[in-house]
């Protein structure tokens, strides 16, 4: 099996689907000739031609709105928003149009658009290249929201997203493009080539949307997380030798609450970890669902670890970014309740 980083795995997903289905077309800023600033679409224009993979004007609203029209006319457009921080000019088209089209036309018109966008921090990107806007989309009926944490899942989930008849917001934690990240900025990135999830079949495969994965079994506490934080949580748990069960939710909407609830009912304790701004982040939604489902089994208050309620800073990035220490503190807080 091939070893791939997340960029190559995403490229491979596009490659498989461009080959399989002529209704798949890809566009966005710089994605054509150059293959995208993160090189996710590298080589695809050369292989499939300018009609299938092309550059778009710097117009996020224009990119998403035209993709909707294409979706209505039978295509499966996959568009890239260069950074998730720049998705807001397209926000109205996503929220008012893409998400609601099926409902408002009672199923007469649908647009199977996939919007891919690199998100998250840990790359010294400052406030406009580091945001985690997923909660803005999880609040919108009609959208599916996906965030993978490794190359293998990234490919399988992107294939499923493009093949999905509902619109999908596919967020790529760019801190993970080249390798897993344990939250320590002084540690150089480990390559995906040394990680089991860096083994990615070159051929077509897909992973079902809406399924969480228990990536580490444990008895004492359930940690629910996604994206870059999956690896930071893993590193923290390993370092402290805690018998934690770690769940990578992978799809935020629809959320696999059954897997989460089964785990919390077993461990009786729950910590939710994400990078996004604390108030109203998706962690809050997970906490409230766990509370609804598992209240009588909980042995301690549910804890959350998130970014702070500030814009994402540049120089103070590592004070903002939830690292291993903050995660351990939250875990210990729940374990301390006897």
């Amino acid at each position: 099996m091939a070893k791939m980083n997340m960029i190559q795995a995403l490229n491979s997903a596009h490659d498989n689907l461009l080959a399989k289905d002529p209704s798949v077309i890809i566009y966005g800023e710089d994605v054509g000739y150059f293959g995208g600033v993160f090189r996710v679409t590298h080589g695809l224009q050369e292989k499939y031609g300018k009609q299938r993979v092309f550059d778009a004007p710097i117009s996020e609203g224009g990119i998403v709105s035209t993709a909707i029209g294409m979706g209505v006319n039978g295509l499966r457009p996959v568009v890239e928003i260069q950074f998730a921080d720049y998705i807001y000019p397209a926000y109205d088209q996503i929220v008012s149009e893409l998400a609601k089209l099926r409902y408002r036309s009672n199923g007469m018109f649908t647009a199977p658009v996939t919007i891919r966008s690199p998100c998250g921090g840990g790359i010294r990107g400052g406030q406009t290249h580091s945001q985690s806007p997923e909660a803005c989309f999880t609040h919108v009926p009609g959208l599916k929201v996906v965030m993978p944490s490794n190359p293998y899942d990234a490919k399988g989930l992107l294939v499923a997203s493009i093949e999905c008849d509902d619109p999908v917001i596919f967020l790529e934690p760019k801190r993970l493009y080249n390798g897993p990240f344990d939250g320590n900025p002084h540690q150089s990135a480990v390559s995906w080539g040394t990680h089991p999830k860096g083994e990615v079949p070159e051929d077509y495969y897909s992973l079902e949307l809406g399924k969480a994965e228990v990536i580490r079994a444990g008895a004492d506490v359930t940690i629910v997380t996604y994206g870059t934080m999956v690896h930071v949580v893993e590193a923290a748990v390993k370092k402290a030798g805690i018998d934690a069960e770690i769940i990578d939710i992978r799809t935020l909407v629809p959320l696999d609450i059954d897997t989460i609830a089964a785990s919390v009912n077993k461990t009786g304790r729950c910590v939710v970890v994400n990078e996004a701004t604390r108030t109203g982040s998706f962690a809050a939604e997970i906490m409230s669902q766990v509370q609804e489902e598992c209240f009588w089994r909980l042995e301690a208050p549910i804890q959350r670890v998130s970014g702070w309620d500030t814009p994402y800073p540049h120089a103070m990035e590592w004070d903002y970014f939830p690292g291993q220490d903050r995660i351990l503190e939250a875990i210990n807080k729940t374990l301390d309740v006897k």
Partner: protein
Amino acid sequence: MSHSAENKLHVPDAMFRPGDKPDFSHLDVGTAGAVKRPAVDTNPAEMRDLAYSLIRVMDDNGEAKGEWRPKIDADELRKGLRIMLLTRKYDERMFRMQRQAKMSFYLKCTGEEAVAVAATMALDDKDMLFPTYRQQGAFLTRGADLFSEMMCQVMNNELDPMQGKQLPIKYSSAEKGFFSISGPLTTHYPQAVGWAMASAYKGEDHIALAWTGDGSTAEGDFHYALQFAATYRAPCILNIVNNQWAISSPQTIAGGENTTFAARGIGYGLPALRVDGNDFLAVYAATQWAAERARAGLGATVIELYTYRVEGHSTSDDPTGYRPKDEPLHWPLGDPIERLKDHLISIGEWTQEQHEELATELETYVTECWRKVDAMGNINDPEMAHTHTAALFEQVYKEMPPHLRKQRQMLGV
């Protein structure tokens, strides 16, 4: 009616406000037949004057003049007349019914019927329409059933094809190529361009036609549409219906005092036509020209349809608060139905008696449809409000995800 500029911040005004005497004699509406008709493959740079003149075909006596006279036979013209008249009768009836609290909301297109009907008739059935809330005539032209597809939608009753999910008048029909009408303005405009890009990608001949209002041209989406249409040479027609008003704001607030709305196409290198929107023949001819151009792979055309919003914006609006009561009567380009009628009479294909018979026939038809609909109840009936409860959770996603199934159970349906 000039207002002296006391400040450097220039806030444009309407030409007339309540109490003013409307007088449009200074408007240069040109002469029927005067504007040249370029070949469809003309370089847009060589036809920029068409963004500033006004294409008119019918003169004041209903006679067709000049190069833009379209090839269209009398049967087609009678069909256009019939649909415009039906649209008006429908609007009148629904407006009255809203006033009797039978439904929540209604919106008329009085005086703008040609903008929808003539443009739609100039296209093929496979072409896709991206309407606003003021092109009910386009839906009727595509053969919408007045009773089941329109009145039942407006009433959200048990036959409503949208199953109560949409505001009244926000029709949809995939089968009839009538795109679902949205709430936010102009969002459909770049969507139409995307639809056209897909058509070109598939190598098909079908084109997209979108309408937007003069006020709505100020939205970013308007510019996205022109940008993408120009970049990718999308086979589409981008209509701007300049009916002079955006609720209470005059078209000058959208920048209409500085240049024409058609001229916005020029900056993008698109061909731009400015057309008398109350002239059925001119709208038909301009649409045909643009459609031919698009089908030939030459890309998009911007068309400003110069018209006037005779009635209030909607049932929630009282236009006498911001414009003279009699302003509509002074509009210099007349009424599209009267003008097409005069034309048909002038070529010996219609008579005043036939016209009156038609009006009676359509009135009767609309009344009959309404009686059927009225018997089915309205949104204020406690029982009717629950007609579609089971559908509440459907069509959010293709398949209902577990959390929605759970919520449906919580509601007990």
